[in-house]
């Protein structure tokens, strides 16, 4: 492996999904096999490349690739530990979602377009993860908006279009605020690479007010995608998209992009010290805590499965923000690992919701009665993921909540501990009734729109496999959290690097 070759690795990772995506656009609707082959080829290549990168980063390498762009702000792709966390998450879940989507959209129209944008969306996400400075981040952030929009409106129904409009209104405004903030920060300190400890400390005393303003603008911009409280309105609407899209949107791409941006902003742009000096962490933390409670509270009243899941996402993603905003290493581990755990759990839940909708035609919670007997595997996966969301051990959700809790105590934020406990209660209050309906209530009448998608299994194997894979992952990530391959150990590595700068 020559270093020359390696320096193109970040670019290659992005291209491995971008190029198949672009080719897929040109395919005819009937070229199903070719399309699937291209998709899977892209996924495989990407996974292999990511694996190479992972090994190298673990050994301490940092990848760097840049193209000139704006004066003082190149387009930088950078592969460090933090970006790799997100890259691995999105690549692995992309694999799952691609298989799921192939099964889900079998025989539906406009699949070339769908898969094309799907690949673009992942490319943007990975690019965002790999971007090495704020300007590159901004670029991929906006591209992500554009790439996901066609997916949101894919169904083309009036509701989908309305949701798409709303999605755009929110995300474009967010992107714009981010742009304003980035420009402001750029005018103060330029846009160097992300670096642990941040790079604004030199001007903290001089431009405190402007830095706070820039932070506020950028958080507002990122908060739209991360669905922070007043900016969350698009998310519940966007669930009209097809299930794989919702899964990707909620678990990986859009929502996480915002959360990931917040992580980058706090640790690698401002840095812990400057955050403390500028007193920025506290408001962010409180905002996120409010979002946690509000999202859970609103989820209680939702009668639509996906809508309830959407509000749950609003709540769960803010755990990441809270973890980051508490500015302690343990809390950071909790927040970062929740990025992964929430992704896997939420994608499982959306897969399940998609399976119910596709196989039984069930969209409402009160239609789910007794579904556990008709679709046991799906229901088991749903139950596991729901318990994970509540934070019941030994699921992955427990691990992240555990570290968040430890972090809250370590940083003297007992209030946050209260928030976690209360939110756990609320999570239980909106997930357990569904589980109850699945398993304990008898089936009431016929299913709304039942289809037999498989002769032997409860539904199409392509719908089952990804879901089971992620469900098993939830348990494995929880039980083997301390082993070297778990997300937890990786986040500990990140936090070690993030907090050991000087």
């Amino acid at each position, binding site marked *: 492996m020559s270093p020359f070759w390696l320096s193109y690795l970040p670019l290659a990772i992005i291209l491995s999904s971008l190029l198949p995506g672009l080719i897929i656009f040109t395919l005819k609707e009937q070229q199903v096999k070719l399309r699937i082959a291209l998709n899977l080829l892209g996924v495989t290549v990407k996974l292999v490349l990511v694996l190479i990168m992972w090994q190298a980063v673990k050994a301490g390498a940092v990848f760097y690739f840049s193209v000139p762009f704006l004066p003082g702000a190149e387009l930088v792709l950078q592969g460090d530990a933090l970006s790799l966390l997100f890259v691995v998450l999105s690549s692995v879940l992309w694999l799952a979602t691609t298989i799921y989507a192939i099964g889900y959209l079998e025989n539906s129209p406009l699949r070339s377009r769908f898969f094309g944008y799907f690949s673009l969306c992942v490319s943007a996400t990975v690019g965002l993860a790999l971007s090495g400075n704020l300007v590159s981040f901004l670029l991929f952030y906006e591209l992500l908006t554009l790439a996901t929009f066609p997916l949101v409106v894919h169904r083309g129904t009036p509701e989908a279009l309305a949701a798409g409009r709303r999605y755009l209104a929110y995300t474009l405004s967010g992107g714009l605020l981010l742009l304003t903030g980035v420009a402001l920060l750029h005018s103060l300190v330029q846009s160097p690479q992300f670096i642990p400890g941040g790079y604004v400390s030199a001007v903290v005393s001089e431009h405190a007010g402007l830095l706070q303003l820039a932070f506020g603008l950028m958080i507002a911009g990122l908060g739209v995608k991360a669905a922070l409280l007043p900016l969350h309105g698009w998310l519940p609407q966007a669930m009209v998209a097809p299930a794989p899209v919702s899964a990707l949107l909620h678990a990986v791409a859009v929502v996480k992009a915002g959360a990931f941006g917040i992580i980058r902003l706090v640790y690698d742009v401002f840095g812990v010290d400057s955050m403390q000096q500028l007193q920025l962490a506290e408001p962010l933390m409180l905002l996120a805590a409010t979002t946690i409670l509000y999202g859970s509270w609103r989820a209680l009243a939702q009668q639509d499965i996906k809508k309830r899941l959407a509000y749950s996402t609003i709540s769960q993603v803010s755990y990441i923000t809270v973890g980051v905003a508490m500015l302690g290493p343990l809390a950071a581990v909790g927040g970062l690992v929740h990025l992964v755990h929430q992704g896997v759990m939420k994608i499982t839940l959306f897969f399940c919701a998609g399976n119910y909708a596709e196989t039984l035609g069930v969209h409402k919670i009160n239609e789910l009665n007794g579904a556990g007997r008709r679709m046991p595997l799906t229901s088991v996966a749903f139950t596991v993921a729901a318990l994970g969301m*509540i934070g019941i051990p030994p699921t992955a959700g427990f691990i992240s909540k555990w570290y968040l809790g*430890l972090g809250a105590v370590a940083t003297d934020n007992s209030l946050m501990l209260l928030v976690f406990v209360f939110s756990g209660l609320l999570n239980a209050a909106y997930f357990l009734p569904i589980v109850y309906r699945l398993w304990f209530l008898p089936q009431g009448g016929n299913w709304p729109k039942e289809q037999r998608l498989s002769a032997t299994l409860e539904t199409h194997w392509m719908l089952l496999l990804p879901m089971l894979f992620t469900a098993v992952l939830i348990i494995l990530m929880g039980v083997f959290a301390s082993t070297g391959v778990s997300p937890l150990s990786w986040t500990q590595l990140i936090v070690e690097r993030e907090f050991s700068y000087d």
Partner: protein
Amino acid sequence: MIDLSAWLWPGAGLGLVTELQQLWWYFSSGLWLVAAVFSLSFMAKTPQKGRYWLFFGLSFAGNMLLIAALDAISFYIGFSVMSLSAYGLVVHSGDKSARRAGRLYLQLAVMGELLLFAALILRASAADGQYDWQSWQQVPLDHLTILLTIAGLGLKAGFWPLHIWLPQAHPAAPAPASAVLSGAMIKAGVLGLVLFLPGGDPQLQLWVPYMICLGFFSAGFGVLASLLYRQPKVILAYSSVSQVGYVVILVALAWTDNAAAVLPVLMAYAAHHAVAKGALFLFSGINARQRLPAYWQLLFWLPALALMAIPLSGGAAIKTALKGLFSTTTLPGWLDSGMLAGLLSLGALLTALLFLHLAAMLRQQQRRLGPGTGRPDFAMHWQGACVLLLILVLIWLPWQWQPLLQLSLTTLAWPTIWTLCWPLVLALLLVALVRWQQWQLPPHYYDRNSSVLLWSLWLKRLYQPQQQWQMAQLQLNWRPVERALNRLAPDNVVGASALLIVVLLVVASAFW
């Protein structure tokens, strides 16, 4: 002992290291196994057996895991698995009361879970990332942690005022499930209290007297409440509340410096109560199903008497030991050991009242079943054998276990026999008096639905609202305004633009 710290988290491990764990493991697993054997026959004809066994197995596994856990997280995992899957046992019958009870159970279980979670977090961060029991013993406690732990585990242990789910859930569950709920799972909470709150901690000392008071109150309250109910399993549940009161007293005593003396008694009490209560619940299950021959009453009376602490029984030994502990432990002055002993005797009286009441109610139940179908069948014998097995354990227990044996033998001394027996006699007299005089409270005092269910329903409405407050959507119709504005636009673009230029010119020159 299995060391898992390389695989899982630091300190993770399973094993029966202490005597406490061993004893708990034996009586819990024994009870679970007997209950399982019992269920084989008892649940043979119920629908959805698979689900029953699934949850039974899960909560069994959880219970065993939490006992064998050498670190807090494993304990917590086992605890969660146990309490959540026990929900499946509670609601098994699927009827309305079971669903209501299950709802309450689950609400409280989740709450307890999270309270315990908070306590664990506080504790773990105080212990600086170590999770094994040994490390935790060294770390001082603080009041918040103590409160959270007591509340979180107490919700499982079920003493007053955290007992509210017990009288609802036990009657609703099938008999073997109630047996393990009351026998094993309640004890899991108690075990947690002992493990999480190591004795000798100065902060914890402050809690001891209050916990003792709480224990006594719980003991008395359980009995008095039970007298108002006529369903045998409810009475048994309240009996558990009352018995757990004594356990709480023991736990509190174990927190003092006298822990070494208290722990054997605590273990004995827990084991004794678990087995006896398990037997009683199983019996009540049989009793409710079919007409029983009269001699089968023995299966009731043996454990009942043990719990009523007649001399030579394990119960008597434990009560005596408890009385002894009061005098040997240093307690604040206002908790006079004499007064405490008196309270114990009063407690014994009340316990006796409870079981007499229960006996009457069981008989009533039998009577209501009408004339028997004839000979008891194989299933009944099978189930009876299970109860008998438990009773044998109960009898055998004091003889097998050295500390308990000594205590039992001391109960044969005359003064002790007197202290133990007068409450029973008094109770008998009292009951006889009541029967003779036909004293009764007005009927509406009996079998009242607990207001707890209403709260539970209210809580459910709160967290499953059909509608929620939302921001009022501002509905403004801008269309007319827009139309009016559009009408303002000039038809004649050329003239208007030219005029505008002239006007601008004039205005600008005027201002410049």
